């Protein structure tokens, strides 16, 4: 490139210098040390393992799943080995409905698979069919049924079967009754989900067609055909089925209004309808890393600490005996970073000293259960489902 200028100055010398240059370049290349095999250069390694969140856009967001992606550098990008060796789960927080845990040493595709399965494929029980005997409330039948459908029911779905065109029986259907009346002259009332009463013996409504004919038979046929009572089953005998929360408003009734209905819950998955999704949200985020490349000191440091709304930074006293009170900003709580990008916003003076990163193989996974199952059980269910899927692929392939 620089040879252009030389061309113009002296044409006669140019050829000679050109050849000399080519020679030196060749020499230089020959003298270069070999690309270290089996180890990625730092910049590529950075791209492979980190997302850098720049002020305008994140870069290096992708991951390379192909195990030969770095073959030219002698690096095997095979996930399986490192996964087997390094995979780690650390539970950070676990309550009845919520769980936060770290999944370390896994790639986004897998983490995402668990997330997707949790949302769409872990089965639960939800109300699917509502038989309305009477509804004089202002809420329309369909809307009422829709609201009922969205109420999560605290029951282990593993104890039930999918319906699949079977007649509703004790193995695939849970029946609730809701009968509320607001007395005339009284106050308006709210119908809460706790008023859904479990009918372990199945539907109490007789089938219409059977109405006239089978008067003689002792037990009129109903909308379900239970062979035994559900509460005779050991799982439910001392643990009656009910909504996860008794405080969900279903409807409001004015004086003289009444709701009388039967709700049939069946097993389903979130893919069909969101009411069967066992999680409120489930999501993950990659572990944030905040790196201060150049020291930010004193006033600037204090400003930086004040700038961050989630208190990622802290101040460290680096003052030794001679210089008292010299301060330096340090990264204290990188995990708290919400990526508001205030610290790298332009015009603050330190935007080039700070780098916000996300670690690509470390996921902070959060499950908020609707209360149907505890979150840890949900996750193991998700793992089982993924396992089943893998088995199916393998068996289909072989």
């Amino acid at each position, binding site marked *: 490139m620089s040879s252009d200028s030389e061309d113009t100055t002296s044409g006669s010398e140019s050829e000679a210098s050109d050849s000399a240059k080519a020679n030196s370049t060749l020499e230089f290349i020959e003298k270069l040390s070999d690309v270290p095999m089996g180890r990625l250069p730092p910049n590529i390694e950075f791209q492979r393992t980190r997302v850098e969140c720049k002020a305008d856009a994140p870069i290096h967001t992708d991951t390379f799943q192909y195990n030969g992606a770095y073959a030219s550098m002698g690096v095997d990008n095979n996930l399986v080995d490192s996964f087997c060796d390094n995979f780690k789960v650390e539970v950070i927080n676990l309550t009845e409905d919520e769980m936060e845990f770290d999944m370390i040493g896994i790639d986004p595709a897998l983490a*995402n698979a668990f997330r997707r399965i949790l949302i769409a494929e872990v089965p639960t029980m939800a109300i699917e069919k509502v038989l309305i005997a009477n509804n004089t409330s202002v809420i329309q039948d369909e809307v009422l049924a829709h609201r009922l459908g969205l109420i999560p029911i605290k029951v282990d779905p593993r104890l039930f079967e999918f319906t699949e065109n079977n007649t509703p029986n004790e193995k695939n259907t849970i029946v609730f009754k809701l009968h509320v009346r607001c007395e005339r002259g009284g106050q308006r009332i709210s119908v809460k989900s706790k008023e859904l009463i479990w009918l372990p013996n199945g539907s109490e409504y007789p089938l219409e067609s059977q109405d006239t004919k089978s008067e003689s038979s002792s037990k009129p046929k109903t909308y379900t055909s239970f062979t035994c009572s559900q509460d005779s089953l050991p799982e439910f005998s001392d643990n009656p089925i009910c909504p996860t929360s008794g405080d969900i408003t279903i409807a409001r009734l004015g004086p003289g209004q009444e709701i009388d209905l039967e709700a049939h819950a069946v097993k389903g998955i979130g893919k069909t309808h969101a009411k069967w999704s066992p999680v409120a949200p489930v*999501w993950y985020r990659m572990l944030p890393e905040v790196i201060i490349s150049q020291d930010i000191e004193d006033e600037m440091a204090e400003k930086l600490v004040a700038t961050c709304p989630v208190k990622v930074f802290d101040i460290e006293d680096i003052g030794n005996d001679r210089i008292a009170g010299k301060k330096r900003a340090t990264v204290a709580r990188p995990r708290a970073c919400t990526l508001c990008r205030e610290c790298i916003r332009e015009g603050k003076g330190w935007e080039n000293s700070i780098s916000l990163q996300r670690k690509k193989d470390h996921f902070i996974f959060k499950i908020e259960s609707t209360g149907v199952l505890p979150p840890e059980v949900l996750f193991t269910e998700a793992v089982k489902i993924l396992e089943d899927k893998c088995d199916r692929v393998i068996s289909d392939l072989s």
Partner: protein
Amino acid sequence: MGVALDSSVDPPGNDKQRFTNARQAPQSAIDMEFLAAPIKSAKDKFALVPEFLKVRGLVKQHLDSFNYFVNTGIKKIVRANNRIESEIDPTIYLEFKDIYVDKASVMSMGKTDDISPNTCRLSDMTYAAPIKVDIVYIRGSHDRKEKVERKGVTIGRMPIMLQSCCCTLLGKNEAELAKLGECPLDPGGYFIIKGNEKVLLMQEQLSKNRIIIDMDKKGNFNASVTSSSERIKSKTVIQMENQRIYLILNQFAKKIPIMVVMKALGMTSDQEVVQMVGRDPRYGALLMPSLEDCAKEGIYTQEQALDYLESKLKRFNFSGSSSEKDSARVMKLLRDVFLANVMCQNDFRPKCVYVAVMLRRIMDAVLNKDAMDDKDYVGNKRIELSGQLISLLFEDLFKTMITDIKKIGDNILSKRSRSSAFDFAQQLTSDRITNGLERTLSTGNFNIKRFKMDSKGMSQVLFRLSYIGCLGHMTRVKPQFEKTRKVSGPRALQPSQWGMLCPCDTPEGEQCGLVKNLSLMAHVTTDEEEGPLMSLCKCLGIEGLEILSAEEVHSPYSFLVFFNGNILGKHKKPHHFANALRKLRRAGKIGEFVSVFVNEKQRSVYIASDGGRVCRPLVIADKGVPRVKEHHMQELKDGSPRNTYQCAMGKQAMGNIAYNQLQRMDMLYLLVYPQRPLLTTKTIELVGFDKLGAGQNATVAVMSYSGYDIEDAIVMNKASLDRGFGRCILMKKFSGTLQKYENDARDRIARPYRDGTDAGRMRALDNDGLAAPGEIIRNNDILMNKQVPQVTRGPQISPSQLNIPYGNAPVSYKGPHGESCVVDKVTLSSDKHNNLCSKFLIRHTRRPEVGDKFSSRHGQKGVCGTIVQQEDFPFSERGICPDLIMNPHGFPSRMTVGKMIELLGSKAGVSCGRFHYGSAFGEPSGHADKVEDISETLVRMGFSYDGKDLIYSGITGCPLQAYIFMGPIYYQKLKHMVLDKMHARGSGPRVSLTRQPTEGKARNGGLRVGEMERDCLIAYGASMLLYERLMLSSDPFEVHVCKECGLLGYYSHKLKTGICSSCKTGDKMYTAKMPYACKLLIQELQSMNIVPRIKPEELEKE
């Protein structure tokens, strides 16, 4: 309070003047520094708005106008026509002493009951009140006469405007309104006619009784006055053509030289005319040709002038007898028709002065083009309101009634032998007025011959799709006459519309700019009593015309004073006079809507108190200092008003329309879970939009996704839809009436069949034959098992005769195929003829599907392009998953910055728990949040200041390569849904005439291959496709053609061969295929003696 209302009577070209006037600035030179200085003002002038609206309400103009009519207008009409006198015996008479409109009520079984508007809506009644009169009349005849006085005689029923002074709802509080089934937020201002809510639209027209100078197409100057008095309406035009000035009046066959008219009016001296116009020699020069003309005609005296006019009168064929009275006719015409607004008896001097002023204005315009009037100027417009319209209607009906009664009376009295005593009062109680009012209001066709009025579409069914739409409908202003499409003037936005008419709210398309909406603070005046004002003006030092000489009219030291277009006189200190009037107005001594304006250019003072002027409130300022002070504002602080407010958007959006929406029985679109917008404006809050919302706050991610989002389509999250986003309810009304026939046979409802072919369709029926509420119903199901007697004429059928033959005529449900709907409500009521009328409200709950239309509040409409599973949707680091995804290409060309601000504001709102304001104005006073402040809130809550988040793809699980602008935006579901529009057909019904497929979705019609499509196929050479589409799939037909004569024959089934009816043989017949429409054409041509013959080439070669 310091709020004055200044009307807009001021002519154009004086805006600046008015501005300075209003601020009482020094009149001399314009002090630029002073004008440019920021106006120190009380910050929250906005707080005045709700206070103002609390007093006024939004549809006050309608209510005021109607109240004025009911309380004053109707009395005036009756006072003007208060006597019915028999021509045969003048001593027999009836006199109306008083008239009044009672409270709304209903008569049933001779008993009067109060009635609520909702009852009327539900049972198809008219919400009306009796019109009562107090009368004095003579009973008996000849020798036995007595004077009778009666009070409270009902002469008809007047439809009542809701919330007007005759309405039962007036002054009721929320609980009382709820008891009556009425929504407290409903503004009223409409009528209920036969169960339908009808609005009488405001009519915009040119102002009456004012001189308007303009130029016609030929470049002639016109001064026109549209006069309108209680007796007559006329139009007088004075035109200047080729330097000569003429009068144009409908009653004259030709243009009349103006000087002849002046002479006929008694101004025989040319000098006096010139003096009256003005002493300026330029006026004289312009007047010269006209003066010469008159002299050339040899007209010097009043008699000559009258003779001349007489000869120019339009001759009427029927006026044979009155020919000798023609000179009297001319006088009468000059008195009553010519400038009818200038009242005079036998002295025509006021008219002369008026003509002189008109001439002067024309000449001003000739000398200086600026002096022209602008017809589109708001001050030159008057808005006719429902009260005025009904008043016209009532006057006509009342007069017709009087003449009818008179006729009947004369008929009876002229008979010799009468059995009973006669009086006029017997005839009063007829349905003429009731029916006339009801019919006109329900059809909207005002056909009043007396005033040559024949306009259609004056009333419209109130737009009840959304609350906002309903409010908007009542502020709509319609132009009176259809203006030509190409003229842009009337459509353009006039600067004078500021504060009076909304600059934004006008329909798109052909009505653009013609149909307008009143702005929210605007008011339309009603007539004010003229007499007291006129005498007040006299007291303030006006010199009357009668004492002025011609010379003095336009003396340089005085201003002419116009009162409602009439010349009152002149005043020597116009500003002093105007200020005195203003002071009186502000003190409340004269009406608040009387406007005064000093026009320096025309050297006149204009006072207006007539109805139909658009006014707006202004803050009075003295020398630039507003009189509203901080302490006034302090007084306002308490009590937040819940006033309704106009707002143009969201007219098609579904949502709550009123609190009583579930008690209504008409077509309705409702949202299942309506929400209050997170980002509002102060104005929206006043609307009650938080109470009657019409949309939902959706979390929107602005990004590209899946390719199903081009052209503004949006991608929706399936889980959101599962959870109820955008779910809507559609209510549709069906009704059936049991009729009674001539022979007393009646329709009946039969028990449903529980077995048989129709049993399936009758699933929803109860044993009483009517569908039961709550039943699921499908297309073609029967709602009411009605049966109709097969014999409806002939001899009477006694009720005991039960076994007359009946046929089935069920009322069935027509709805989208394959959807199941529910019977929501069934009402039984009796209609006017006491027939049983059943109404069924069918409810259909719909969840959004691909193709449904949604819109944000920024004119960004889009259809749902695809629905995506939640797990495929992107999610943020906080686990937030958007409800819908919008393509960023929607932004650059539309430049809807408001939408971005809304997103930011809403996002800040949800995260900090406060409703933010997004108004474009009022930032300094805290009525709008600045973007900077919103950003600060966002940062405080851990979001990026620009609202963009790191988002993970739901499909790959990796972060996206850009930060995504994501947050809540208020989305509205619009009424356009695919389910209502989707249509396709294979074979189906055909039109019987042409045998081609029917057209339109309602008739299950086919999709037409039109001429352009045909062109494409021709160009492509797809002849077989063309043949198939245009012939085989449409109307193929086989005809028998005669080889000999080329005419169409017919097929004889007996002989099993085609026969030509003209050749009378079947020998040379062949068949041909052609579209039935072609065969039809040939035959139709034959029927009018054109003979098309078919001569195929191939056959001829044979």
